[in-house]
């Protein structure tokens, strides 16, 4: 808008708007800053000072403590395995199916597409799915966290739509050059789809890292708990897993309780913050939005 149209009301509105948005922006990130600060502070400081961003008594005791026991380290390791393995499975299942469904002439394509769409509308629910996983003997294995969510119907349709946009001439040319179907997918379609696939890799990976529900449902063995479940044990239920709690001086836990909780929260958040810039780059491009309606 050019300057000459600005009124006093408009200017006041602008000032108010910039202030309000700044406050909202700060409110979105402030909890993290406080948690990071608190995780490096002593508990007495946490009691004494109400709010701070820079701790006076810088201490890494909380981190030392959580990494001194196997509990947290082990659950981080579990989460990493689930995230990497799960994302690979997601991509394999999503890409192969999306590629097949992108072929307009394929017999039975509409039937399968309708099956996919109907599954977005109606689901068997928690218990029948649980029983299927149990019947397949997947309880207490990482597969239970990976297979039941192998494809997100929503993502599948977006990837399928993207594959359909690839000019058929490209595929024809490759076919004439003697490329078979799977070679076509691998050598022509996938390289062309890298930005989309990068987006879904990140979204699937974040989903696995953050997943709590599946682990709550399917994993009873504390040895196999991912970090999210461990986090809940430590912060919400305020107890370290049975085995390790005994080997630790009780007073030490008591003393550092609040800062230990904060340190665990930081550890659970950092991986997300690390991939966030990449995530933002992709969804900001509108890869997802453009496809919501189409």
């Amino acid at each position: 808008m050019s300057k000459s149209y600005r009124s006093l009301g408009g200017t006041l509105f602008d000032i108010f708007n910039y202030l309000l948005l700044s406050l909202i922006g700060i409110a979105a990130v402030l909890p993290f800053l406080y948690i990071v600060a608190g995780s490096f502070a002593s508990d007495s400081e946490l009691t004494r000072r109400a709010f701070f961003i820079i701790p006076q008594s810088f201490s890494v005791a909380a981190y030392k403590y959580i990494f001194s026991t196997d509990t947290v380290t082990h659950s981080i390791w579990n989460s990493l395995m689930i995230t990497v393995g799960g994302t690979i499975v997601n991509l394999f299942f999503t890409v192969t199916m999306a590629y097949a469904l992108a072929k307009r002439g394929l017999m039975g394509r509409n039937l399968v597409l309708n099956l996919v769409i109907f599954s977005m509308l109606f689901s068997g629910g928690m218990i029948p799915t649980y029983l299927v996983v149990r019947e397949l003997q997947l309880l207490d294995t990482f597969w239970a966290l990976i297979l039941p969510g192998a494809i997100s119907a929503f993502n599948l349709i977006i990837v399928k739509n993207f594959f359909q946009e690839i000019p058929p001439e490209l595929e024809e040319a490759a076919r004439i050059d003697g490329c078979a179907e799977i070679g076509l997918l691998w050598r022509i379609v996938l390289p062309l789809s890298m930005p989309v696939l990068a987006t879904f890799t990140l979204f699937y990976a974040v989903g696995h890292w953050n997943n709590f529900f599946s682990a709550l449902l399917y994993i009873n063995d504390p040895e196999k708990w991912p970090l999210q479940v461990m986090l809940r044990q430590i912060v919400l239920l305020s107890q370290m897993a049975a085995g390790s709690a005994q080997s630790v001086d009780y007073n030490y836990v008591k003393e550092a309780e609040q800062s230990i909780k904060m340190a665990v929260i930081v550890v659970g958040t950092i991986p997300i913050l690390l991939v966030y810039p990449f995530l933002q780059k992709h969804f900001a491009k509108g890869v997802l939005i453009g496809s919501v309606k189409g």
Partner: protein
Amino acid sequence: MKLTAESAPSSAHARQRATVMARLRKDKWTYVLLAPGLLYFLIFKYVPMWGVLLAFQNYQPFLGFWKSEWIGMENFRIFFDNPEFFMLLRNTLVLSLYNLLFFFPAPIILALLLNEVRRAFFKRTIQTMIYVPHFISLVIVASLTYVFLTTQNGIVNTMLEKYTGDTIDFLGSPDWFRPMIITQTIWKESGFGTIIFLAALAGVDVEQYEAAIMDGANRWRQMWHITLPSIRNTIVILLILRMGDVLDNGFEQIYLMLNPLNREVAEVFDTYVYMMGITQGAFSYSTAVGLFKAVVGVILVLGANWTAKRFGQSGIY
């Protein structure tokens, strides 16, 4: 072969069948690629759908699905007669209503405010900040809530004690449960929720604004007559989707904030299904509860879609 013998009387039929076979053979590798995904949907989506039949059984794990006794609508009758049913329905609906009233408008308002910002750098910075919470897990969100609100050394209660001399047990109080849940949702999702509206707003023709300014329209009038109408469709679509979720409060969030002290307002259909089914092993009964919820959800979303179409909006189905 049998196939040729049978199809001999009708050659058209035979030709058709031959083309079918030829097409199947031609796309052989495509079907190989389709297979894993299709199997996934059949095993993990459609077998459970068929599994909702458990709701009409008295399912005994040691008898299995085939030998368990069929009891018709008995599970549903027990559920509707249970006084807990009304508690669950009330809690679920109240939370959904709060969500609709307090959360649903938040991303729209935020997007409108962002849309008024002319400085690209400022806008980008704010966007970067407000999208972050969307990617944080609900366990972390609940953890933050606990760490902030606990009466043992939590920052909020430390401050309250300093200034009022009193502490409030937010986490264990039925009065604070709903405000807590809605605040979490607003904090976590209103930023990310703006994306879809900002995308719709980006498509608005600048000439419309210029014409409006020529006609003497101030900022409010421009917003009211140009900006809002341009995102009306998006709002309607999101409202339709929201309708389908009226009985769906999001299991994880509620479950994480639920405890015996606030159960009377916190227990909703999803957490009840988990408690009855997984914790107590009443598979048939909890499947019936889940099925009730799912069917109402489908009816609501299709109903909302139908209504939207009648009022001249484009639906989604």
